[in-house]
């Protein structure tokens, strides 16, 4: 798309784009180029000598069982977060689309968690599930469940998944609700006249028509689970116990900032960049398709 009517000036447009381009170059491109450059370097233990080692950091990375483990954990984490988040919010949105009385009140009650910072979401849930004093821990103990996420890796994973999903439900809910409301009522009515019940209508008409929204949310939720959940993890498990919740982003942070492994952390950054680029391309491909249809 292009504008038919444009203005002419030899310098004004450059002046107008200058601030954005300056910030983009200084804080996006320069660090990204450096990340790629560092990923080819190896620093000795004292940070005195740095030498060029080519792809050695990457080779080391993919031979590192901890890194491969972190990949698996990230995959599991994002599947759990995206899957349960989408199912729960679709259920809530389908119900909210149906009710008339109190619709605005329900909507308000369901969207506020979006305002909560991921780190705070983590803290709230960690408090309720705290091994010795948590209120939910107490209830679980009464039911005979021994809960201690500080030592149990699966429970730690469950905790961060719950906190992450809780934080993201509002977002999914709003998109599903918008999607549901854009389905023409005539289709639903026609099916009802043909004798299809609510469950049948949902399965045969609503779900297929919602598939673009669902796919979009799937990509967004995976991106969310990959990157935006850093706060949840740092404020609760810090990747533990024994790396059970150490997702890729957390490992980049941990290796780079806490362990001081510049080359290894940068190599991981480069891998992550590839993942983001892939996800972004998928997302845009999909959006183009949606526009045509």
């Amino acid at each position: 798309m292009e504008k038919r009517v444009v203005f002419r000036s030899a310098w004004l447009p450059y002046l107008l784009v200058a601030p954005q381009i300056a910030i983009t170059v200084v804080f996006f491109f320069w660090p990204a180029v450096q990340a790629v450059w560092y990923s080819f370097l190896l620093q000795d233990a004292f940070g005195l000598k740095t030498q060029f080692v080519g792809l050695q950091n990457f080779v080391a990375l993919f031979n590192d069982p901890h890194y491969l483990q972190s990949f698996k954990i990230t995959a599991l984490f994002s599947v759990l977060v995206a899957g349960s988040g989408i199912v729960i919010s679709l259920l809530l949105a389908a119900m909210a689309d149906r009710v008339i009385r109190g619709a605005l009140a329900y909507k308000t009650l369901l969207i506020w968690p979006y305002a909560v910072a991921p780190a705070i979401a983590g803290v709230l849930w960690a408090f309720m599930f705290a091994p010795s004093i948590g209120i939910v821990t107490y209830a679980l103990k009464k039911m005979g469940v021994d809960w201690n996420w500080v030592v149990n890796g699966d429970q730690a994973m469950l905790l961060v998944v719950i906190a992450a999903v809780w934080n993201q439900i509002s977002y999914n809910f709003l998109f599903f609700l918008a999607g549901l409301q854009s389905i023409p009522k005539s289709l639903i009515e026609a099916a009802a006249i043909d004798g299809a019940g609510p469950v049948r209508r949902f399965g045969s008409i609503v779900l297929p028509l919602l598939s673009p929204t669902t796919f979009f949310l799937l990509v967004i939720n995976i991106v969310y689970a990959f990157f935006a959940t850093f706060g949840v993890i740092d404020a609760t498990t810090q990747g533990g116990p024994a790396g059970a919740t150490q997702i890729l982003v957390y490992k980049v942070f941990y290796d780079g900032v806490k362990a001081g492994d510049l080359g290894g952390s940068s190599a991981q950054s480069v891998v992550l960049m590839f993942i983001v680029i892939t996800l972004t391309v998928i997302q845009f491909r999909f959006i183009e398709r949606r526009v045509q249809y």
Partner: protein
Amino acid sequence: MVENRPWLNFFAHAVLILGAVVIAFPLYVAFVASTLPYEQIVAVPMPLMPGDRLLENYGQVLLHGSTKGSGAAVSRMLFNSMVMALVIPFGKITISIISAFAIVYFRFPLRNFFFWMIFVTLMLPVEVRIIPTFQVIADLGMLNTYAGLTLPLIASATATFLFRQFFMTVPDELAEAARIDGAGPMRFFWDVVLPLSKTTMAALFVIQFIYGWNQYLWPLLITSEESMYTSVIGIARMIVGGDAATEWHLVMSTALLAMLPPALVVLLMQKWFVKGLVETEK
């Protein structure tokens, strides 16, 4: 509604009420904890009725902070969060609207190049370039400064796209009329484009306010002085490890204070919030 099915309506309300209660439960527990003395929280199980320490706990964190972990006053952290939450949307909207204006309303060499440069930043979230970005900020001497906290976050492809998309829908006749009346590009920008963009700006502001307020990784990296902590960082720093060692009553008071501004923005500006959310992702 297509047909009347009372049991289905009942079911829908039941699911929604259950959902709302489960979602609100952590908030309620946090609120109760923030009104209790420390001893009552660590006595298992903690009561589920609010106590009488509301003013003491909130006064304590606002003026003095916690006694273990970070001892910085939360009022200062809230101020820092507010700086981020206001400067980031303001800066983002300003630089994005002018760059989108240039890209849509001018033809100039390198125009597409600039557009792609901005576009590519979508693929470089701060999480994937932690160390080098930190180094750039350190080299520029911007550690522990408001400039360091906000500047790297104000460049955004989404805001530029949103304005670009909106400008494409502005009728060409407006620009034509402005030109015939002898208005230059900046006059057209101030008198036509800016007033028309008000709703887009409001929607973007709400989303970016929450984005700025809730930043975590970035302030965590570049602030080492307690006086520069944001409220979200402050909460994480108050947790000293070990259930009973953490002053949960103060942590929860701080958490509620830190949740309040963005929650108010979402609830009071719900219309703009929904618009902003749905449109920035288009």
